[in-house]
């Protein structure tokens, strides 16, 4: 599917809105490219799921790309990342090879978790990608743990932790925020508020709808940003990460975003809990073409460059699928490996 970007004037002129961030044109183009890669990768994952090449639960990141890309671009290589079960996009944003991510989805031995994790449990120790976790909110204290570890070891690595807004109702979310604030841990909590915990709207699950305000109970720095805008994502997370690195203070950020697909592959796009019209309306702020058009308008990207990028990504995704398809399954004796050290 080709991307044709509109050259019409954006509603707001944002030509110079990234100037203060010191981002080069190459970086801006890379933001766009990573988002586009995630989009195309996830679309292909959906197809492969349909062909039963991918099993189990498979939660796509389509619609939320700007959050992961902007946030992860704000990190250093020695920073730590925790994700939840919607983790493919974060893994790709971190620069993990699409081949090993697709192979993991296919349950192959060449996958990033050797086929033992699957869609919800992508790991890459070499990139401090500390994993995707499938119990809602259950991974949040682990992120405080790596932050604690950085401080204990005298390193200035920062940890970021992604989770959905539904996780903010879990006990461990609050326990961890308290510990992180109390002990001044260098961790940034990034709540991707896509407005639905599976099929339950924020308004039906949260007494307080501004999720970031939950940090006020812990006197923690907090804020929200437009999660459909990669620049705003980068800006907010960079500020929070820099602050954590300098002062060891945690921050809770709420990314206001939206998923364009169902909760998982077994969930229809709108189902009983949201309307088709709502989804279509939200797609008007699709973070990928929105940013592409902005770059085009700013003269940073050309339609030709976008076409070339599409072709390149198509090849990358095709190669990922081919690699995954041809890779071996884990050997039978691997069943009992790695239960214990």
């Amino acid at each position, binding site marked *: 599917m080709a991307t044709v970007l509109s050259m019409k004037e954006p509603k707001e002129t944002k030509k110079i809105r990234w100037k203060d961030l010191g981002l080069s044109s190459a970086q801006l183009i890379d933001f766009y490219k990573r988002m586009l890669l995630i989009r195309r990768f996830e679309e292909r994952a959906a197809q492969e799921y349909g062909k039963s090449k991918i099993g189990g639960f498979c939660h796509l990141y389509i619609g939320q790309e700007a959050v992961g890309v902007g946030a992860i671009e704000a990190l250093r290589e020695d920073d*730590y990342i925790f994700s939840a079960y919607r983790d493919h996009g974060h893994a790709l944003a971190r620069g993990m090879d699409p081949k090993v991510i697709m192979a993991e989805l296919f349950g192959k031995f060449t*996958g*990033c*978790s*050797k*086929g*033992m*994790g699957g869609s919800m*449990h992508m*790991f*890459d*120790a070499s990139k401090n990608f*500390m*994993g995707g*976790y*499938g*119990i809602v909110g*259950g*991974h*949040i*204290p*682990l*992120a*405080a*743990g*790596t*932050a*604690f*570890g*950085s401080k*204990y*070891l005298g390193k200035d690595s920062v940890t970021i932790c992604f989770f959905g807004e539904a996780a903010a109702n879990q*006990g*461990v979310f609050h*326990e*961890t925020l*308290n*510990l992180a604030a*109390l002990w001044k841990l260098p961790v940034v909590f990034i709540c991707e508020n896509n407005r639905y915990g599976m099929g339950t709207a924020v308004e039906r699950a949260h007494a307080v709808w501004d999720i970031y305000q939950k940090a006020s109970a812990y006197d923690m720095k907090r804020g929200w940003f437009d999660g459909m805008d990669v620049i705003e994502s980068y800006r907010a997370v960079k500020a929070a990460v820099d602050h954590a690195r300098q002062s060891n203070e945690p921050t809770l950020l709420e990314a206001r975003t939206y998923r364009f697909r169902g909760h998982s592959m077994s969930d229809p796009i709108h189902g009983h809990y949201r309307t088709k019209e709502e989804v279509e309306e939200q797609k008007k702020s699709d973070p990928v073409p929105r940013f592409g058009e902005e770059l085009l308008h700013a003269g940073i990207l050309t339609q030709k460059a976008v076409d070339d990028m599409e072709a390149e990504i198509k090849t990358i995704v095709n190669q990922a699928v081919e690699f995954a398809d041809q890779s071996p399954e884990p050997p039978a004796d691997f069943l009992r*490996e*790695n*239960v*214990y*050290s």
Partner: protein
Amino acid sequence: MAVVAFREALNQAMSEEMERDPNVFLMGEEVAQYQGAYKVSQGMLQKFGEKRVIDTPITEAGFAGLGIGAAMIGLRPIVEMMTWNFAILAFDQLFNNAAKVRYMSGGQFKVPIVVRGPSGAAHALGSQHSQSLESVLAHVPGLIVVAPSTPADGKGLLKSAIRDDNPVMFMESEMMYGQKGEVPDGEYIIPLGVGDVKREGKDVTIIAWSKMLHVALAAAEQLAKEGVEAEIIDPRTIRPLDETMILNSVKKTNRCVIVEEAWPFASVGKEISSRIYSKAFDFLDAPIEHVNGADVPMPYAHNLEKLMLPSIPRVVDAVKKVLYR
């Protein structure tokens, strides 16, 4: 050989390991300023400072998870749970994260954490403070479960647990913290997964661990007066289980009684008897007898609490039953 109390032996193990490895630290409720709810960490704050002996808020899931995250990047946390009853709040962290991170990451991360604290009944603590949950923990692949019965075993096993790269669930006993015993001088290590014959005998094997080991030993003394020589086996580590030692003893005595404080349903004792039935069936001269805590929540009333727990007479009766006496 010095005679020390159980709590002191555990303190020695932690202190020695903290001296040996700067990445070992202790964290938990009341472990620092208060000197430990049961004084196991007495003096450690003064010795190691607040960076390494850390008081936590009452937030078991939070600090267990924090310990797991820290372990994933190379630290070796000792997480004290004021009791294992409170640790139930952290079981999601232990079951879903500590036990699985290594496996589901394809071996990329390890979780060298020790979670330790008292387990089982003390005196009149009622239903919620008197549980023996070793079978629940041992059910989960990825966790190691240790339940020592003597100060020496406590020290040697805790040192191994701290050095081990796996998550180790270390179950102590409130009733045993003051119990004294000889602890070998100098570096003393007991490997995980190796049981111990606590009393040799030829007539019957009694398998017991933690506090119940002492009930079994007292029962054996009484039985000896009646001419019955019981062999008492302490697995010390519940998972991995020293199956060889158990089978060897049963093959020798041909009779077996398993004593445990926990409830009978799906208990560790049932796991042990299942293994004996499958692997040493022909050696048995009588069905295995189980002595468990009664299948009820712990009552408060003193008389009923006593009735709930395994006792010396119940063990003696069970031994007589397998001896057809």
